[in-house]
């Protein structure tokens, strides 16, 4: 059932490596630079220059290959879409003549190149999300987006909200598990065969769940206030 599924918080995996210890701002900026570079990159051999450091960093990050394989597998269907689209658009299959095979070859080669480009981007993004913990990303985003404060974009508030959301997801999962256990004891069948009955049973969870979450958030708000956090000044530290 979907409520029992794990809510995975990002893909952060802790290891001792120099990539984990880098400044998250540096990682974020370099990720954006690489992304924009890949968009405007011309030439095929240049792609190799992205592959080599990526492979080096993958080895240095000490993250097992099983996890890399899992990360790449999700995007497998996208590789097929890219290949199919390039072959279709460049070979023009309805126009039959001798040059068809030549066009097919061109389409295949450009499709494979596009897929490689996409794979390099996936690799760098996975490297970033696996080696940077969510709180680190929030601090990096906050300090990089600071100039937006001048036009009135509430950067600090947003980062606080993001941090609180991260804090609340495990609480949400715990409370949901507890409530499911309570309701099962009360005789509610969450794995009923009838779809409408199952939907009803899930809806029965929502009211107490929201109530409990309100209580939790009030406790948290009180804890923050008692430690001197003020919403309007927004000068308190994050680690309340």
């Amino acid at each position, binding site marked *: 059932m979907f409520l029992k599924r794990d809510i995975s918080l*990002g893909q952060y995996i802790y290891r001792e490596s120099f990539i984990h210890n880098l400044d998250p701002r540096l990682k974020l900026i370099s990720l954006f630079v690489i992304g924009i570079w890949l968009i405007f990159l011309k030439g095929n051999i240049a792609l190799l220059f992205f592959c080599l450091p990526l492979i080096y960093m993958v080895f240095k990050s000490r993250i097992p290959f099983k996890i890399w394989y899992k990360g790449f597998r999700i995007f497998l269907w996208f590789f097929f879409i890219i290949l199919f689209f390039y072959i279709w658009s460049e070979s023009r299959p309805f126009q039959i003549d001798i040059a068809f095979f030549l066009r097919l070859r061109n389409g295949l080669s450009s499709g494979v190149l596009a897929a490689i480009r996409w794979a390099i981007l996936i690799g760098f*993004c996975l490297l970033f999300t696996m080696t940077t913990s969510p709180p680190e*990303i*929030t601090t990096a985003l906050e300090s990089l987006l600071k100039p937006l404060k001048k036009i009135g974009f509430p950067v600090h508030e947003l980062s606080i909200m993001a941090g609180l959301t991260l804090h609340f997801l495990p609480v949400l999962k715990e409370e949901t598990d507890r409530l499911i256990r309570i309701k099962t004891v009360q005789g509610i069948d969450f794995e009923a065969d009838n779809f409408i009955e199952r939907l009803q049973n899930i*809806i029965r969870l929502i009211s107490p769940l929201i*109530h409990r979450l309100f209580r939790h958030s009030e406790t948290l708000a009180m804890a923050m206030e008692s430690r001197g956090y003020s919403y309007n000044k927004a000068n308190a530290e994050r680690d309340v």
Partner: protein
Amino acid sequence: MKIFSNIDINIHHILSYPINLSENLNHVLGVMLFAILMTLGAFVRIHLPFTPVPITLQTLFMLLSGAFLGCGWGTVSMGFYLILGALGLPVFAGASSGILYILGPTGGYLLGFMIGAWIVGHIIGSGSCPSWKLIISSFSLATISLYVLGITQLMLWSRTSLKNALFMGFIPFIPGDILKILLAASILKLSHPISRSQRKIKINQKGNEE
């Protein structure tokens, strides 16, 4: 409705929970609400076999966030949604690894949500009751700007001609978007307090005449 017949959702119990909402906190709740709605909208998705861009309900909530929260907080709610995605929470269409979706071919649409919410909020504003014409024109303008950004990034990434990019990222979505614009406009119009009170007055007048 049959589905909800024998369930006791104690909505009164939830709503009467003693929270002192200041004006700021009200906005914060709105921001969070629309971020959650965007997430739910991302889970309602239909993948077409020939494009990387899925059909989702997100444009509907983008339009509504601009209209309900105003241009400032509407943009902030979309920005909050993007930040949650960048942190690695599974909130984007297609779920998993967040920052990849912002940098990848469909990232232009995600940035377009912010621009779209800003445009809607800027044109409609808050307070006064907007007319149908204003609502629908602002919604269409926001949707078009969303697609301009999205198609630009898609075209740069897939390195195809504009015609191909339009075929991948715009033409299949036109009928759905017209429906979403109409739905969002009717939701906004029905839920606006002024138009609601006007309807009540009309109903009362009819009752008096009869």
